[in-house]
């Protein structure tokens, strides 16, 4: 019997999002596997397939499609749990948003597969993809907005019915993330609608390249916080419940999310430090603002480890570190996310290096950066999502996460960690030796380039070994997902009901923290400060526009 046929609508919705996420994950990681072998000269593609086409697919499918669809699945299931079942209108609008997002995704994928959009996921002008590629991007964003506003509608209804109360932490964090996403997307929507689409369809002749880059990166940095905040939600709200504890401090958790909204947007220039058109002063100002996110990051780290320690001591852990042994290491739902957190320590440190103004010259566009985002989004975020998947799909399908599957899950996170350790270490080191990112194999005839194939760890071969282990791990995960979806034994009613959400004591939380008008207002003031002058300079001093180029 097909169980999912008679699932209630608010479970089918997150399942649909999860399905797209894991389909993208499978194809995306396959692309990753091909990349590591091509870069290491162990694989030559047939003529109809190109390295950069694959890389475009890899970046889009993993960093955009997998993350976004999974995030909405998590938000939908979580808010209906935290605030009560969706009404018919909320469900309807979520479905409409889902289909628009999916339509956009398919349009983009078709354009990439047909070779008309090998522009990488950053689609820098004046490389010109087929116009429908940009239409697909726009639809994707609009679809996520529709889903996002549907969820906000549900939240507003709850607030009206519960006047004067703070919303549950999960709902608060969902709304914060959606606000961040909507504000961030304004940049990419502006450049796609007003620059790329008219230019790609030939209605205008030239494009202001520097403006399009700046608008893209206005979006590109908060994009990483759009990935991270849902992972933080798992860390703040889900993990404490898994270990039997409580949220360490409700007010600090909310404050950190508010600070992330404020300080993750007016900072995009840190991706443009080595390019002309932006005065050093503005680059530096945005560097300073970038570093402000260190404050909520430190708060987050403190809260999480405080939760662990408190719980470990409750369970009888003694001495400075004895509490560590008391944590539920045998629960893969916990262990996976803990490893994900540990990866974020070097990941965050690397981010500080990248953003350090003049130090950026050393690493910009080298493999170092690739190593960096695989130990930020590629592991802390992705592995948190894996850890959620292990109970999330059972929650939605009503099947059991059996002992055997749990063992496989341990193997999966273990192999992902080893693979990532090898691949990202190699990439970081190769980057320091000058090896470029986004570059197929070449035998640059120079000893500096030959060294990229000779180091012990700093070697394209190690990168390929790591990449292969990663791909096996990805297959294992897909196997687990399929089992949890269709084949694992159906469980009793109880396991269907477990969406772990820790208790959070709101008694000391100031109501100001949930006054969105204030925070959105401050966010726009900061954005205006950081962007108005440099963007108007880019517009006023615009050179004649660039034409359309298809150099692939």
């Amino acid at each position, binding site marked *: 019997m097909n169980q999912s046929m008679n699932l209630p609508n608010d479970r089918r919705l997150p399942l649909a999002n999860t399905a797209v996420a894991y389909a993208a994950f499978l194809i995306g990681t396959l692309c990753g596997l091909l990349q590591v072998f091509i870069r290491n000269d162990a694989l030559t593609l047939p003529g109809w397939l190109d390295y950069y086409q694959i890389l475009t697919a890899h970046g889009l499918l993993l960093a955009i499609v997998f993350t976004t669809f999974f995030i909405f699945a998590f938000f939908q299931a979580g808010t209906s749990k935290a605030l009560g079942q969706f009404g018919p209108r909320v469900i309807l609008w979520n479905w409409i948003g889902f289909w628009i997002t999916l339509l956009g995704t398919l349009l983009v994928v078709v354009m990439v597969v047909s070779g008309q959009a090998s522009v990488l996921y950053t689609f820098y002008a004046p490389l010109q993809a087929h116009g429908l590629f940009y239409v697909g991007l726009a639809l994707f964003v609009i679809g996520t907005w529709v889903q996002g506003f549907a969820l906000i509608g549900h939240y507003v209804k709850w607030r009206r019915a519960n006047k004067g109360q703070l919303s549950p932490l999960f709902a608060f964090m969902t709304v914060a993330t959606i606000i961040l996403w909507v504000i961030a997307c304004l940049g990419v929507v502006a450049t796609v609608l007003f620059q790329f689409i008219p230019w790609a369809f030939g209605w205008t002749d030239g494009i202001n390249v*520097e403006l399009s880059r700046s608008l893209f990166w206005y979006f590109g940095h908060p994009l990483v916080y759009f990935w991270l905040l849902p992972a933080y939600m798992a860390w703040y709200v889900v993990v404490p419940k898994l270990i039997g504890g409580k949220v360490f401090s409700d007010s600090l958790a909310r404050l950190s999310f508010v600070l992330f909204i404020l300080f993750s947007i007016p900072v995009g220039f840190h991706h443009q430090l*080595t*390019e002309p058109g932006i005065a*050093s002063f503005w680059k530096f100002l945005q560097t300073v603002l970038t570093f402000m996110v260190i404050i909520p990051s430190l708060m987050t780290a403190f809260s999480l480890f405080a939760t662990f320690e408190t719980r470990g001591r409750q369970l009888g852990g003694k001495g400075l570190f004895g509490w560590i042994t008391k944590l539920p290491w045998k629960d893969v739902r916990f262990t996976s996310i803990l490893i994900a957190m540990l990866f974020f320590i070097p990941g965050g440190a690397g981010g500080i290096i990248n953003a350090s103004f*003049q130090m950026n010259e050393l690493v*910009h566009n080298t493999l170092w950066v690739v190593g960096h985002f695989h130990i930020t989004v590629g592991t802390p975020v992705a592995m948190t999502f894996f850890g959620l998947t292990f109970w999330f799909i059972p929650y939605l399908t009503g099947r059991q996460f059996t002992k055997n599957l749990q063992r496989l899950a341990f193997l999966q996170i273990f192999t992902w960690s080893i693979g990532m350790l090898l691949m990202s270490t190699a990439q970081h080191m190769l980057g320091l030796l*000058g090896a470029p990112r986004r570059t197929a194999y070449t035998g640059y005839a120079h000893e500096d380039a030959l060294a990229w194939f000779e180091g012990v760890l700093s070697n394209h071969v190690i990168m390929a070994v790591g990449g292969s282990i990663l791909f096996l791990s990805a297959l294992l995960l897909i196997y687990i997902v399929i089992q949890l979806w269709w084949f694992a034994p159906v469980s009793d009613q109880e396991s269907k009901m477990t969406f772990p959400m820790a208790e959070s004591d709101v008694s000391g939380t100031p109501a100001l923290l949930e006054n969105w008008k204030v925070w959105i207002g401050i966010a726009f003031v900061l954005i205006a400060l950081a962007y108005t002058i440099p963007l108007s300079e880019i517009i006023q001093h615009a*050179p004649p526009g660039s034409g359309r180029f298809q150099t692939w």
Partner: protein
Amino acid sequence: MHLHKYEKIWLAFGIISLIVFLSVVGVSAFHQGNTPSGGHMTIDPNKVRETAPFDQTGLHERSDGTYEMVIISQAFGYDAGDWKVPVGKEITFTLTSEDVTHSFSIVGTNVNMMAIPGQVNHKKHTFKEPGKYLIICNEYCGSGHHFMSAEIEVVES
């Protein structure tokens, strides 16, 4: 809102390091001039070769004893004269692109410049050691991107 004592210490430590760190970066940038490459001149991307200084690519000695190297990047190569520069002399690299976005990056140095169509980028560099340096494009520019490289020879003057 309540802050745990250890959390206060932790955040104070973090914030103080942040201030120290940003001051170091700022002083190095604006007092000692260690800013990443940049520039504020724009250029018509369709008329690069007719526009000074790109009408004469290659190395030029300036009256103060420093040098300027004028480079046009295009898919998939660079136009920069004969790729010889003197050791121990300050060289300003002046870069733009004739078509799509590229980069001009000298492996083993801090020269890592974006070539943006319509914009002119500058970076000062002094080579301390003679020898041959590898130049690569590290910004994706098309199917031949991985072939876009050059070699610059640093010679005793």
